[in-house]
């Protein structure tokens, strides 16, 4: 479980960037949050092979949970984060039984349906969630009682990056464990996995719950650092965006979501500055081209690169 040399480089770069570009801290904060969200989808799609068009459901639950906790007294961010992530995990656990059955299409529809239902619920109970106006009056205390949130996103950025790092390390531990390997077996061939004694359904429920907790943590980060929650967190386009992020970065290895998030946000930032209203066109074009060029080929290239980088320090048995 030692970190490779280039992994150190990656994280040192990630930590250095906010200091190098102090004016871009809010953007970096958004990238970190999106990266965490994409990481959570990667656990689901890349490692367990579950397609989802409604991953925003858990992002939204986490965001609203964190926002509501902060609004009603619990202003400590870390505790709020844990609780919000737990709430998302509960919702994930309950809805995980819905994706066990059926084909890819059924799963797409069911996950999308769950997210849309939550959106309607959040819209309906506007007394609690603020409805279309968004949840206002969220005030956060200092992180761990030490670091106050400021206007320039210094604390927000550090807080999000730290959370991302911690959760990334946990995810790395998860996918390299026997549990993670059995997930890949289920992804490869569910029937054979079951035949060699992997309880496929239980594994899928577990990873769905974990992924939901991760997405909830990402949502909570967004709610806490922007101190605002709107219905937008549950919107369909958020589920579609995170899928695109994962495609850009490549699924099936943990850095895919992180790299994809950086590419996506930088591209969005750049395009939005160029054509404020029509950046979605270019995002769509990228998506079309990526698929036509062959998503598999892209991720295969990424995987080769990954393998080469991973081999370099060598002198230890492959994980």
């Amino acid at each position, binding site marked *: 479980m030692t970190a490779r040399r280039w992994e150190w480089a990656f994280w040192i770069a990630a930590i250095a960037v906010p200091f190098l570009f102090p004016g871009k801290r809010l953007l970096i904060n958004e990238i970190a949050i999106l990266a965490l969200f994409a990481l959570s989808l990667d656990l689901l*799609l890349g490692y367990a092979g579950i397609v989802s068009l409604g991953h925003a459901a858990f992002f939204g639950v986490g965001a609203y949970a964190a926002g509501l906790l902060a609004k009603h007294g619990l202003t400590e961010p870390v505790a709020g984060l844990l609780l919000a992530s737990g709430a998302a995990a509960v919702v994930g656990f309950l809805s995980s039984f819905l994706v066990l059955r059926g084909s890819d299409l059924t799963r797409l529809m069911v996950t999308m349906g769950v997210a*849309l239902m939550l959106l309607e619920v959040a819209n*309906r109970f506007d007394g609690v969630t603020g409805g279309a106006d968004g949840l206002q009056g969220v005030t956060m205390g200092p992180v761990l009682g030490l670091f106050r949130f400021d206007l320039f996103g210094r604390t927000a950025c550090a807080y999000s990056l730290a959370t991302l790092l911690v959760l990334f390390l946990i995810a790395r531990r998860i996918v390299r464990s026997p549990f993670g390997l059995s997930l890949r077996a289920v992804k490869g061939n569910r029937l054979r996995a079951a035949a060699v004694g992997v309880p496929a359904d239980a594994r899928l429920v577990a990873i769905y719950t974990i992924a939901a907790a991760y997405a909830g943590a990402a949502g909570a980060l967004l709610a806490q650092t922007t101190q605002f929650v709107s219905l937008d967190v549950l919107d369909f386009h958020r589920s579609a965006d995170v899928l695109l992020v994962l495609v850009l970065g490549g699924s099936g290895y943990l850095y895919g979501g992180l790299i994809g998030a950086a590419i996506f946000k930088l591209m969005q930032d750049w395009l939005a500055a160029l054509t404020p209203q029509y950046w979605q066109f270019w995002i769509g074009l990228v998506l079309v081209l990526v698929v036509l060029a062959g998503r598999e080929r892209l991720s295969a290239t990424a995987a080769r690169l990954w393998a080469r980088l991973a081999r370099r320090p060598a002198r230890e048995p492959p994980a």
Partner: protein
Amino acid sequence: MLTILFDGLAYGMILFVLACGLAVTLGLMNFINLAHGAFAMAGGYITVLLMGRLGVPFLWCLPIAFLATALAGAALERTLYVHLYSRPHLDHVLFTIGLVLMAVAAVDYFLGAQQQIIRLPAALQGRIEVLGISIGIYRLFVIAVCGALVVVLQSILAFTRFGSRLRAAVDDPRVARGLGIDVNTVFALTFAVGSGLAGLGGALGAEILGLDPTFPLKFMIYFLIVVTVGGTTSITGPFLASILLGVADVAGKYYLPKLGAFVIYALMVGVLLWRPHGLFTHRGAR
């Protein structure tokens, strides 16, 4: 009460015309085409532009909308979609979402984000009273047109050689190929007609559903509900599902204005859990 039922019926009919092409493409090639709504939007905008800029009468716009979108569908199918059939479902979803995003932004760029209004001919405006029920003439017209379409489609499917080829290809493409049926051509034709129908539905529905650049995203979920609930092996399945959805949606919006959509999504998830291949699929089809 009956007025709601009637409005729901008209709404459901339009949904069917919009979604039946999707049902067939999904059933035939197992291709998830989320961009189906973009064709419908194209039909709607063609009508708006023809009427507004060139003064073409509304009734002439309908066949033009059908033909134009059918041609566009055929062109896209031959150039782009054809490469993707053998790919995993995720690729279909990503590719077609990309197309939708492009279509939405392009329409927004060229024609603006505002709601488009179609001025109906005077003969189709207004309401009449039949047996104490107030009925919109345009809705009656829509029901008549869509009803005729359903009959035509169903008889093509049931009585023509093309129809039997199509049914064979839907049931089992591999065996159909083995019997000498040119499944690819059948599929290209069906795709074109399905896109054309979507365009026609968009033109007809612009008055009832509204038309703005976000149309494909807004109604994508409805098409998918029709298809997944109705099943993809017949035309009657999606037809019944659309009517059900249309009536449920109109009634839901009327009686439970804030929970209407929730009820529909909940129903959909429920149906999918109960029968993952749709409500109206016959046994052993898949």
